[in-house]
């Protein structure tokens, strides 16, 4: 059914259609609207049977989810940013225990400085935790990925993180096709746990494992995630068969035919990039786009295949590996081992900084001309940075950087002072 609704609400409806049995909620922007909607559905009885638990922290949210999942319930939670970091210990634990929890991460920057706006730093910080990470490009895809995520998680006994850009997607009202319950039921069978806490067949879950078997346990976790590389496209195909639209998969190319330059990105920014590429194509520039949906497992072969014919690639990513540059870019480079492509990393959209077509035209142009620096910070206000660096050089007690910048802008501190 087509609805004009907020992204968060669409996701909440998708989660509800998946018939979750336990939902743990702790508020943090920008995921809050999702669990609010779910809470209401549970309270009205629209979503039943389901336990909606207001917990006291994200750490508790994931911990309750671990318990519920281990006891055989289909379990869901959502978080973002600091919340994700606060639950990290449990995030790793859920993966280690092989519990098929589905969690929405409404991507948001990590402080300090505290910032509620979108980038991918939160999700990227958890890229090695053992969860499958799927990135939605649109609200529709976010909705669809949640349905796929439960199936994927439960088939593999692995938790799945569905990442959607905070505010940009979560708070955007768009037309969304919310599927019928019957179709979702047809696609997603009831949860059949691989292991479950049950007095009828007691097991001890969560043993301490020493050097004699730890490597094997980790290898098995890796092997299991790698098996998702095959399964994710199959599930996308099956999804198409049931629901009649493309959603999910490992990667999605756009105008890659004869592209000499390929822009690689994750999430909602792909829309802006595609618009820019369309305009460049109109001007005859041989440029295409590769969207990565499955960041973990990372589809090395698919990325390599998509980029093999190009001359250069430009990774535009909303995250920064401080001290080296790009995170996605590093992964992409691994896929291209031995190929003679030039590669550029564009760090963009941090903390909600707008990514405009104008800026993209500029940097893509520089890349095509091979004039772009290897790691480029999109729209970086260089004068400001320079002033801070200068001041730090000169003054020992230079104060917090953010405050310094605001001072320079003459916005806050000057008025107070």
């Amino acid at each position, binding site marked *: 059914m087509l609805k004009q609704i907020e992204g968060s609400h669409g996701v909440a409806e998708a989660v509800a259609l998946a018939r979750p049995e336990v939902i743990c909620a702790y508020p943090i922007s920008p995921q809050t609207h999702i669990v609010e909607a779910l809470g209401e559905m549970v309270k009205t009885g629209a979503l039943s049977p389901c336990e909606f638990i207001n917990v006291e922290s994200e750490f508790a949210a994931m911990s309750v989810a671990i318990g519920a999942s281990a006891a055989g319930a289909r379990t869901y939670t959502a978080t973002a940013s600091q919340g994700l970091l606060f639950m990290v210990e449990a995030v790793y634990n859920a993966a280690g225990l092989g519990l098929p929890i589905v969690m929405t991460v409404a991507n948001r920057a990590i402080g300090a400085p505290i910032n509620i706006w979108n980038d991918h730093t939160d999700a990227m910080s958890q890229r090695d935790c053992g969860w499958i990470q799927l990135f939605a490009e649109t609200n529709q895809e976010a909705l669809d990925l949640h349905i796929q995520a439960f199936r994927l998680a439960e088939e593999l*006994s692995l938790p799945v993180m569905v990442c959607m850009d905070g505010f940009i997607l979560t708070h955007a009202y768009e037309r969304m096709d919310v599927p019928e319950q019957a179709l979702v039921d047809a696609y997603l069978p009831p949860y059949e746990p691989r*292991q*479950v806490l049950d007095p009828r067949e007691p*097991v001890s*879950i969560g043993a301490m*494992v020493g050097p004699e*078997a730890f490597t094997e*346990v980790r290898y098995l976790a890796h092997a299991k995630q790698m098996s998702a590389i095959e399964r994710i496209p199959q599930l996308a195909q099956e999804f198409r068969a049931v629901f009649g639209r493309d959603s999910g998969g490992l990667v999605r190319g756009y105008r890659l035919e004869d592209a000499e330059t390929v822009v690689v990105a994750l999430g909602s920014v792909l829309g802006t990039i595609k618009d820019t590429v369309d305009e460049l194509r109109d001007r005859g520039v041989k440029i295409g786009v590769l969207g990565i949906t499955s960041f973990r497992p990372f589809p090395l072969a698919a990325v390599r295949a998509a980029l093999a014919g190009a001359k250069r690639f430009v990774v535009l990513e909303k995250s920064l590996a401080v001290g080296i540059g790009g995170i996605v870019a590093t992964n992409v480079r691994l896929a291209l081992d031995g190929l003679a492509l030039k590669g550029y990393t564009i760090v963009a959209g941090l903390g909600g900084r707008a990514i405009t077509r104008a800026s993209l035209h500029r940097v893509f142009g520089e890349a095509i001309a091979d004039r772009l620096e290897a790691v480029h910070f999109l729209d970086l206000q260089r004068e400001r940075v320079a002033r801070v660096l200068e001041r730090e050089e000169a003054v020992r007690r230079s104060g917090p950087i953010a405050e310094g910048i605001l001072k320079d802008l003459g916005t806050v501190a000057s008025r107070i002072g």
Partner: protein
Amino acid sequence: MDKPFAITLDPNSSLANRTGSWRTKRPVYLDRLPPCNHACPAGENIQGWLYHAESGEYEAAWRVLTRDNPLPAVMGRVCYHPCEGACNRGKLDQAVGINAVERFLGDEAIRRGWLFERPSQASGKRVLVVGAGPSGLSAAYHLARRGHEVSIFEAGPFAGGMMRFGIPKYRLPRDVLDAEVQRILDLGVELRLNCKVSNILETMGEGGFDAAFLAVGAHIAKRAFIPAGDSARILDAVAVLRSMEGEDQPMLGRRVVVYGGGNTAIDVARTAKRLGATEAIIVYRRTRDKMPAHDFEVEEALQEGVMVKWLSTIKQASNGGTLTIEKMALDQHGQPVPTGEFETLEADSLVLALGQDVDLSLLDGVPGLVIEKGVVKVNAQMMTGYAGIFAGGDMVPSERTVTVAVGHGKKAANNIDAWLRGETYEAPPKHELATYEQLNPWYYADAPKMVRPMLDLIRRQSSFDEVQGGLDESTALFEARRCLSCGNCFECDNCYGVCPDNAVIKLGPGRRFRFNLDYCKGCGICVAECPCGAISMIAETT
């Protein structure tokens, strides 16, 4: 379930890990000798019969008791219960009233008519027992239960010996004594009364006896030289007490003086009181704490109005009943020495209670016998110097109590039985003594000793009714359950419960426990928390 590798484990799989290998010390169950058993002159398995009494299984308790002592109703009245003196519970609150429970069981047996089991086989041997006192009856009982044919030759007109002629009725009612004697006779023991043995070898020869046990009591009063007028009425205690069993009660008068400090002196004074004496005065040369009589008996006598002149000796008894008393003083060794101070005391009669001797004339002419200080020497098997003749009770060097005598009877019977088979009796080895320090008294419930009822004072002064009453079923049960079971498992399940490694296997009621050394780490909690000290740690040797 297809379980995730390593992270998910099968339940109970740790049984593969034998933590017993950590151990440097191991616990062992043991049985220690309870102090009550250790102290009992009759060799009773007191803790053993209390165990059954605790459960309310009184007949079972009585049967365990009478394996060693056939006279519980008597013993429960007249025994001076050294068991209670040794009882570890005395260090906790008050000793278990073993004697009271024993009396309850004895009375219960009489009331319910419980009988001894007769032996399944006859040995074909004949044993003569001389004297139907406690040691003779005890020996006869044990010998009869082993299948021997036993005849008791008793010089007196009744069975019981000193139990009858030395202990007043108010301490031992005669129906109780008669019932317990009869039960022994019911085993097939022959009793010949008024049958004094004057020559043991002759009697044995005539009767065709294979062995003899001599158990003649000390019925001859010791005399002291007291210058006395012709008409002074001076009696001996044994005669006074003996005459109480006849039809004519002794004539003691209104003022009776008893000379001596033993239990017999007390008995005579209390008897005199009951016979109507207005004054019964004991004259004793030392102080109360030096008095050989048991303090509780002294106390009871005092309650009944008996008076005692301490530190006094009788120097003279003149005609007209005036006694001259010399005051004594104790020297630095506690010995009484004369002070030269005199006083007089009026008395209608003076009863001497200065000890008794045994009539050993029946042994005249028996070769090999050694007699010293009026008693017969016996070896460790209680056999005299003449093979086949054994002796016990008052006849041998020992403390003269009913309980000791009963113990002699049992010991002699064991040895006679072995000797008759051409063997030497070997007593089973004794366990180490269970001390208070080995107990964990925390676990025992707080439980005050049950008090036996006492006859009211007026009736004690005027009748021969039994002074001390018995416990009833509920109080006897309570008292039995005060037993700490020192040194022997009573299946409280503590070891089974407190082991952090589940290394104690419970074998079921009556079967106690076993250590599972595959898992026992040797922590020792079971030892520390065993209430009764029935577990010990020993070093691992390997």
